[in-house]
Each structure stands twice: as structure tokens, then as C-alpha cells.
């Protein structure tokens, strides 16, 4: 078992899922409640990583992180470093790649909140931020938990984007899925099996937790 890769993967997934909570909630609120005609365009952008081959996304992110692009050169001027093949680059790529896995459950949760409750809060003098903070988010919190768990699990299992953007640098960008690939290439099947089995058990446990929690909440809501 490559403990360094395990710790790096846990660090990456934790950071990405926290960032996705902060970024995903406002995006999901907008998607759930906006009446803009062009909303479908933005929704499609959010959902793009689900359909797009990871290599395509990884390629364009690599281009964007390069010093020839406006974003890449701006980042280099600000920090003196490039984003490609670094942990920070991996975090940005993972946030974009896992965005739909965080946003979609939240949107479904927000849309399920009874609009009359929001209207009632409005007639009681509450502006949108108060309505979201005190009515929508507390009532939709199971969907927030779902979004958090899915984005965490998805980040742990990423391969294509990680390899394209981060490469395979031990202690910096080598995650567990890359480590399995390395071990298989070196014909070290036993080690690959240990790591793969760890990921399998972890993913299954996480999904059991998610579905168990949802079942409990459904029963609780039906009381």
C-alpha cells in the first residue's frame, strides 16, 4: 500500500469536496431558481464533465494552465509557479471535473423544497439570502450531504484528468488511482490489488453510508 498516495488522495478529495460545497451551493441555487432563458447553456456547462472524455478536459485544462494562456500567465505572475503538474493544478482540475456530481444532487434537493415556504418567508419580510439560509438550505440538507459525498468519492476515483493535468509525481500528484496504474505497469499485481481493494471497500462503504442516510431521512420525513 502506497501510504503517500493514500494521504495525497485523501487531502485532494477533502479539499475539492469542501471547495465544491462553497462553489456548488450558489451555482445550484441559481440553477434551481433562476428564470433566465439562457439558463440551459450554463446548466450544460456544469454537466459537461459527465459526458466529456477526461482526456479532452485534461488536455484543455493543461493548455489553460500553460504560461501561453492568459489564465496560466496570470497565475505565474501572481505566484511565480505554473499550475500544470502541481497539486494546486490538480485541485482546480478536480473541482471542475467533479462539479456536476456536487451540483446535480443539490439542484434536485433545492427544487424539491416547497415554493410556498419560500413565498411565506418573503411575505414575512425575508430577502433571498435569508430565505436560502434559513428555509432552503436546512430543508435540503440531505442533498448537500449527497453532493459532498459524491464529489469526495468521485475525486478519489479520478484517473484521466489527474494523469493529464498532474502527471505522475510522487508526493505531489500521484494519487491512488495513478498508483494502481503504476503497479500494474510494473506487473506488481499484488500491490495493485491491495490498493484497488482498498478503493473498492472505501467506495462501497461510502455509498452504503449515503443510501443508508437517505433511507433514514425518508423514514424520518414520513413520520
Amino acid at each position: 500500500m502506497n501510504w503517500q498516495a493514500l494521504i495525497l488522495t485523501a487531502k485532494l478529495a477533502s479539499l475539492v469536496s469542501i471547495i465544491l460545497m462553497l462553489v456548488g451551493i450558489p451555482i445550484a441555487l441559481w440553477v434551481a431558481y433562476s428564470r433566465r432563458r439562457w439558463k440551459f447553456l450554463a446548466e450544460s456547462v456544469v454537466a459537461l464533465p459527465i459526458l466529456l472524455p477526461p482526456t479532452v478536459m485534461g488536455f484543455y485544462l493543461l493548455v489553460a494552465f500553460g504560461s501561453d494562456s492568459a489564465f496560466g500567465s496570470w497565475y505565474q505572475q501572481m505566484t511565480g509557479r505554473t499550475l500544470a503538474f502541481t497539486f494546486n493544478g490538480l485541485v482546480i482540475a478536480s473541482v471542475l471535473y467533479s462539479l456536476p456530481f456536487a451540483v446535480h444532487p443539490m439542484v434536485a434537493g433545492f427544487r424539491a423544497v416547497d415554493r410556498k415556504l419560500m413565498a411565506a418567508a418573503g411575505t414575512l419580510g425575508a430577502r433571498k439570502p435569508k430565505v436560502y439560509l434559513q428555509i432552503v438550505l436546512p430543508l435540503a440538507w440531505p442533498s448537500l450531504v449527497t453532493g459532498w459525498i459524491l464529489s469526495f468519492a468521485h475525486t478519489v476515483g479520478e484517473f484521466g484528468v489527474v494523469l493529464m493535468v498532474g502527471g505522475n509525481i510522487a508526493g505531489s500528484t500521484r494519487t491512488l488511482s495513478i498508483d494502481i496504474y503504476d503497479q500494474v505497469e510494473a506487473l506488481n499485481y499484488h500491490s495493485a490489488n491491495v490498493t484497488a481493494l482498498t478503493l473498492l471497500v472505501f467506495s462501497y462503504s461510502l455509498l452504503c453510508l449515503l443510501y443508508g442516510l437517505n433511507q433514514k431521512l425518508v423514514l424520518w420525513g414520513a413520520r
Partner: protein
Amino acid sequence: MNVVDVRIRKTFATARRRTFSLDVEFSVPAGVTVIFGPSGSGKTTILQCIAGLDAPDSGQISIVGEKFYDSSQKLDQPAYARRVGYVFQDLALFPHMSVARNVGFGVRVNRTEKPRLVHNALEKFQIAALAQHRPAEISGGEKQRVALARALACHPRLLLLDEPFSALDDELKHGIIADLKRWLHENAIPVLFVTHNRAEARIFADRVLLLKDGKIAGEGNIQEIAALQPGWVA
């Protein structure tokens, strides 16, 4: 003196791809005004336009001289700025909050003053003992009391009631209406009350607006309406 002046024109789609046109103009004096009409006559839409939850196609709405909506001036104040209390037909209590938090949601005073005002509203509607219960843990009649206390605790300029008593038996209804009348009398809050139940209109109304097919078909006090319409008893 009129408290509310309303001119609303709105056309909207109903079931089976039909359109329905609402075209009403009326004024509401102090006291309780009942909008009486059958289901689908546009009663709830009128209340929602006044509260800012829906927008007319054109018209004007002003409350105590202050204009909230005027299509000619493109003025449309949001619901949170209107200070209009609204009790929904299904009450719309916040299920994750206690009764006390529901009632205190719209109360905007300092932290030391707020518990006193909330407790006062709970006392007036005889639900102080339920303060820490959640809506799912109380009866239908108690929920009605919570919804009324919540709408009135923040001292609205106008109270809109959208058939909130339709699911209650007569005994409960009379008790709640008595408490409500007491509060309204003490605080001089005008009421616009929507119903299709004549008995409710008779016990509660100072004035009745008859709504038919999206238009005002008659108005007056109960005696005047009884003289005009068959089926009404003064």
C-alpha cells in the same frame, strides 16, 4: 378611508389550455373584507398580486396610500418590502422550525425585545404551551393558530387570508376567528379574506366583494349582499 386600492388585470392559462381573464377594481376599507366566489374565480390570484407573490399584467396596487405596484410606472415592489401578512390555504408553516421560531421569523426587533413579542403573539392565540413543538407535532387547529400568529406578530399593514379555515370544523373555526377578531380589533389591522364558504363570510365579514368569472359582480355589507343574492342570509 380606504386602506387598499386595487386595480388588477391578468390573463393566465388554466387547465385544458384555456385562458382566464381577471379584471377587477376595488377598494378595501378598514375592517374585514371578504372576497367571495367559487373555485377558479381568481380569488387567490388577487391575494398573490397584492402580496407581491404574483404580478398582474397591468394595474395598480396601493396600501395605505403607498403604491406597491403600478404597471404604467413599471413599479413592482418585492414581497419582502410590502409588509403584507399572508396566511396560505395550506398554512406553509416551516416544518424544520419550532412554533416559537415560526412565529418569530418575521419579527424585526432587537434580541431582547423579540422573545417578549413572540410570547405575546403565542399567548394571544393560545399556543404558548406549544412553543417548542414542531408543526408536525401539533393539531390542525393549532397549526391555524400558529399561521395566524406568525403573520400578525410582525405587525403587517394588511392581512391576507386565503381560505385558511376550510379544513376546520365549526367549533374550532369559531374559536380561532374569535381570537383573530380580538387581535385585529386591538391592533387595527385590515383584512382581506378569501372564501367560498358563506357561513365563514357571514361570521367574519364587515364587507363582501362577490367575484364571478374574474370580475366583481357585487359588493356591500352582509345585509346588502343578502338582498342582492339568493342563498345569502343576513
